[in-house]
């Protein structure tokens, strides 16, 4: 009998013992700490060392930041106001804000122009970075270079307008003829654009910039973090097409083209950027026609563009090599010629693989724009080392200024690299 059996054996429990809570050392924060911080003797020592280290850093920096002053007008005044306490003189940032961001020569009443250009840049870059945005926004991206040039440098609107017209006509020509004959369409478009610029350049009157809507600002007046941003954005966007061309050239079957591309890429990658900047500042002028004057900004842009194009070419070559051979063969078997195969089948896939790598090159390049301070251009670092630290008011305020520069670069570069990781996760379809 079941009933009898359950009742007869005295040592068998008849009811379920209520659940008791797990031991304190196996739950919650204690368990987590035991597992993640103090799992062994070595780990415990490491944890303690790390805690001491963090404490030392925080105890040094936190009072310095919290006690910081934002409103004094010179270092002496700031030291006086602090009265021996530890504290930062952040007032150098507020007082010299304009110099740090725009350089010391850009006319103050025109600051709205770079500001507007910056906001427009965010709009123009958005559809390139985020594929979900409406494709119509790409029109803004296409127009942006001309608008930004006009906003920042000012002067006659005819110059950027002429450049735009050249591109538009060339684009239309390519659309019409490029479909049937790529070579004709491409080289014809280049020739047409050059002709338009040459003819139009003669039509623009010499004094067009004098009474222009926006007053002209020469390149040597650019400076501060604005200069870093401008160099970074311009050189990266110019070097992507050049990098694609170099990568295709390096993968080409034609020995001459391949050889030229290999020599160029390896040469650029073998020398430091600083020597290329020396070339820009002291040597490049010798290679232009004697009567021409090409300003330093443009020369620097040329050299940095060549520099980053070589690196981007290597990234894209990696993307081209990563594509399965079947893609190339499939394109061939469809009867597509080389430009069609590249444009419709190979490059869209190869570029997609290369985007994270290109973004990494862009981050590196943006950091490298600080090197222009070596050839006495006043970018953010150049402003700090030159006019600000040398001034009588702020001689000796190292940490606030260098910390600010470091923070600015960190925010931008960390942001871009997070974007690149996000994109990598998104593009990784997972099989």
């Amino acid at each position: 009998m079941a009933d009898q059996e359950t009742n007869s054996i005295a040592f068998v429990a008849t009811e379920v013992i209520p659940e008791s809570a797990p031991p304190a050392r196996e739950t919650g924060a204690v368990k987590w700490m035991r597992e993640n911080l103090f799992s062994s003797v070595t780990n415990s020592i490491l944890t303690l060392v790390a805690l001491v280290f963090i404490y030392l850093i925080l105890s040094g920096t936190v009072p310095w930041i919290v006690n910081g002053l934002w409103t004094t007008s010179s270092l002496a005044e700031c030291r006086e106001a602090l009265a021996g306490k530890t504290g930062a003189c952040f007032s150098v940032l507020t007082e010299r804000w304009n110099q740090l961001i725009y350089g010391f020569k850009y006319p103050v009443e025109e600051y709205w122009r770079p500001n507007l250009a910056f906001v427009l840049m965010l709009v123009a870059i958005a559809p390139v970075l985020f594929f979900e945005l409406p494709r119509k926004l790409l029109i803004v991206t296409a127009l942006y270079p001309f608008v930004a040039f006009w906003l920042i440098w000012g002067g006659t609107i005819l110059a950027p307008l002429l450049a735009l017209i050249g591109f538009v006509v060339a684009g239309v020509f390519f659309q019409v003829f490029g479909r049937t004959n790529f070579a004709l369409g491409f080289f014809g478009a280049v020739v047409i654009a050059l002709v338009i610029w040459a003819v139009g350049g003669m039509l623009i009157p010499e004094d067009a910039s004098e009474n222009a809507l926006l007053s002209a600002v020469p390149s040597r007046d650019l400076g501060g973090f604005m200069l870093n941003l401008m160099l970074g954005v311009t050189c990266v966007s110019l070097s992507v097409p050049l990098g694609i061309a170099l990568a295709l050239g390096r993968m080409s079957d034609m020995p001459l083209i391949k050889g030229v591309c290999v020599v160029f890429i390896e040469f650029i990658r073998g020398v430091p950027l600083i020597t290329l900047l020396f070339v820009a500042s002291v040597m490049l002028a010798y290679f232009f026609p004697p009567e021409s004057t090409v300003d330093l900004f443009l020369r620097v842009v040329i050299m940095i563009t060549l520099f980053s194009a070589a690196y981007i070419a290597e990234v894209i070559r990696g993307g081209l090599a990563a594509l399965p051979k079947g893609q190339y063969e499939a394109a061939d078997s469809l009867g597509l010629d080389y430009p069609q195969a590249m444009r419709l089948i190979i490059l869209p896939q190869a570029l997609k693989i290369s985007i994270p790598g290109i973004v990494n090159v862009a981050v590196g390049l943006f950091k490298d724009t600080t090197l222009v301070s070596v050839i006495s251009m006043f970018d953010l670092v150049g402003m700090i080392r030159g006019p600000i630290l040398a001034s009588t008011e702020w001689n000796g305020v190292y940490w606030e200024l260098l910390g600010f520069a470091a923070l600015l670069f960190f925010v931008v570069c960390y942001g871009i690299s997070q974007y690149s990781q996000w994109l990598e996760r998104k593009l990784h379809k997972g099989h």
Partner: protein
Amino acid sequence: MTTLTDPPKASFRLSMLINDTRYRSLTFQAIAAVALALAFVYLGNNLMQNLRAAGLNISYSFLGDQAGYDINQRLIEYDSQSTHARAALVGILNTLLVAFLACITATIFGVVAGVLRLSNNWIISKLMAVYVEIFRNIPVLIWIIIIFTIMTAVMPGPREFKGDNATSSMFLDLVAFTNRGVYIPMPFFENGLFGNAALNWVLVLLVAMGSWYATRKANARAAEVQAETGIRPNTFWTNLAIWLAPFIALMFIMGLSWEVPALKGFNFKGGIKVGGSLIALWFALSIYTGAFIAENVRAGIQAVSKGQTEAAAALGLRPRRVMNLVVLPQALRVIIPPLISQYLNITKNSSLAILVGYADVTATLGGITLNQTGRAIECVLLLMLFYLTASLLISMAMNVYNASVKLKER
């Protein structure tokens, strides 16, 4: 019946240059060659005109002229009477010195941070992640300036070491950190076997190489014994003896002693002075590049599949041997190629020395010599030639190593 006939001999037509794939690439290359030649002629012509207008010519004879400037950080004899070529050589050696030092320390930083980032200790791995992110995302130029500022503006001046109530003191009474540089004790031989100090050091080097050769022999012998008997004799103590005994004996015979820096007047005298600029450059380059190497190391270790670790553990290997015998050899194959490019980056980034006044080749040849002689084109070309050669040599050496650790596939 049909007879096979030769295909019709196609006569060559001009349009085939474009339309026939057999000839098209030749056409394109010919066009490219002509365009390239035209571009070179154009640029060369501009160069010639500009040089003539400026009254200059291309000549390297300035390298033999007297340099007339001093270099305070130098590895070989140099004074202001020496030639520009000698100044460039001093600079080249300084570049190689800082690049070599930074490569070693960057590897140490990188490997430690990369391994610790994978640690199961939460706080340590987070700390290492913060280190990597902070140093990777701030330009190396700013790091060099920051560390140089610490070396010059924060370190005490020599006068603070003076007197009875000095505010600073030497570290262990051996090393002095001052804002003019760091002074460390210098080893020297009281009764060297040769009159020339350098020859004595060469002797030490020879002895070290002999020891290295002997330990290799000993290890090979141990491997032989192991192959025969299955038991590997313990080589640790014999190797230690082979390394240390001749070395200690040599040091004893030659009378090794240390020259400790001491405060004389307003400055430290004696010992080796390591300039603040060298330390700033060295440390900034290593800690910056270390962050990149840490990421490479982490990626390399993670690239070894978990099955490998588990298989090794299933064979009964201890965690340390699993790391040494199974994981690291496979991870190294992934780590080495990016490590090479980091070494190249260090060599190239060492050109930022010009910023802190360290006399590397960019600062001597590309800086003072260029400004004094006005020979911009020659100086920049020589500078590029040096860096190009250095880069190619490093990548060649590393490619040889790379090929030796490559997976041997059937």
